[in-house]
């Protein structure tokens, strides 16, 4: 049950990133899976570098797909995804790597420390975003206008490009750092991230049906899907 709870938290936060990219940055970011895997591989060198690399890729995505329509930006993100995978194959040579992990006991349950940390970071991220969503500060309202119509937002003087860059950088950095933590203790290969991305995408797609309430309902949906699976 604890494992289910932690997984649901992680997938909900990943789905939130997917949803934000889709709604604000107007891109179905298919490179999230590879960024997640990259985090796993980079964790070999140290966990602190994972968000930095993730943020750089997010920035690259933003610059590369600026002013592209949704389908072209999606294809561009897919190109980036495959480039990351191929770079991992070339750099690490071996296909599969076993990542180290630390075990600890939480109320008598045996847990992987890195997974616990990933779920705590995810929980913090979700709580912060939920507070941002419910409190509706001025920046949230700006984001809402961008979500509804990017051209209108620009007419109102909102810097949509900046918002897009921030969303892509933060979501990529988040995916990369969660990948670094959540893949600990597992045997990883360059294609492992696809599964996590598809799963998050699935949750985000269901949440997207609820339009306005999507961000609030993302956690219960994630619980439901994780429980079913």
């Amino acid at each position, binding site marked *: 049950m604890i494992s289910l709870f932690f997984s649901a938290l992680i997938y909900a936060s990943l789905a939130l990133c997917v949803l934000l990219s889709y709604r604000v940055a107007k891109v179905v970011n298919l490179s999230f899976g590879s960024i997640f895997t990259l985090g796993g591989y980079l964790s070999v060198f140290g966990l602190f570098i994972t968000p930095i690399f993730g943020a750089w890729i997010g920035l690259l995505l933003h610059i590369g797909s600026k002013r592209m329509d949704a389908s072209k930006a999606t294809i561009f993100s897919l190109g980036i995804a495959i480039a990351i995978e191929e770079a991992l194959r*070339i750099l690490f040579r071996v296909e599969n790597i076993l990542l180290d992990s630390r075990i600890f006991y939480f109320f008598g349950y045996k847990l992987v420390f890195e997974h616990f940390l990933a779920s705590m970071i995810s929980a913090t991220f979700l709580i912060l975003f939920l507070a941002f969503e419910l409190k509706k500060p001025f920046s949230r309202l700006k984001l809402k206008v961008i979500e509804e119509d990017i051209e209108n937002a620009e007419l109102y003087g909102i810097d949509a490009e900046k918002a897009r860059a921030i969303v892509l950088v933060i979501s990529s950095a988040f995916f990369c750092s969660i990948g670094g933590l959540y893949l600990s203790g597992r045997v990883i290969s360059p294609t492992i991230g696809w599964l996590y991305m598809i799963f998050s995408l699935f949750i985000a797609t269901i949440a997207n049906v609820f339009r306005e309430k999507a961000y609030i309902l993302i956690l219960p949906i994630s619980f439901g899907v994780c429980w079913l699976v």
Partner: protein
Amino acid sequence: MLVGIAIRILVLVLLILPAFLDCYTKLLAASALTLAIFTVSWLYLEKDLGWASLGHSIPFGVSAYLFAINPLLLFFSPLTTFLLFPLSIFGKHTFPFASFVFSVFLWYLAHHIVFEGKGGEEGFRAPSINLDLIYLISVTILILSCLLIWKISNSYFGLKVKAVRDDEIAAKAIGINPLLFKVFGFAISCSLASIAGILHAAIFGHVSPGVFSPYFSLFPFVAATIGQGKIWSSILGSYTVVFLSWFLSPYVPEFHYAIYAVALILASYTQSYARSDRSV
């Protein structure tokens, strides 16, 4: 004009020459050939209907699996149209992404397909056919596919398909049923992709979940990008990807993915997708 003729001659040489070479080269050429048929099927969907599929491995892989499980099931392979076509409800902009995600989903699902104790990650053994014979069949099918697409494209019926591609609402206004022509276009494309999948299974005598992998999903897109959307150049593009991967794989693991990454990034800057935004 001269470049076009040179490409046609080069393709014909590539089709004929391997028939006289050793078994391994012939196997490699046969693989490139089936993928060329696959590319032609994709190109029809993109050029004449305006739907850029990144999940064309769905009809390709499902047919290969059906053939491997029971060769009699191959008669159901045209029905794979109805696996890809429903994704068109997402619209032309989201279709590439939706089809790709569905193919990745099938890739994972295929690992769990077990029939009479066989399958799973190892896949199924397919009926193996003599390499010379299958090579001859593949060459014939590729030429027939090109002729069929050329014939349909230039027919009255093909013009209606293109009208639906350009503007569905205008097409409806002049009495064309867009749904019918879309289904027809998808059926032609998926049937050719299915044939390519069956030939692929017959050449290697084996089908694994890899037939749904991004390698196959993205292959026609990449080959068509190299060939700049023209049929003969795209066939040459298919050969280029297969042979380059084979030559460079010992130095760069899975080199085709490097080609894919470059092609996808460049294509997002150069190619145009989704010719018509309107849907009925």
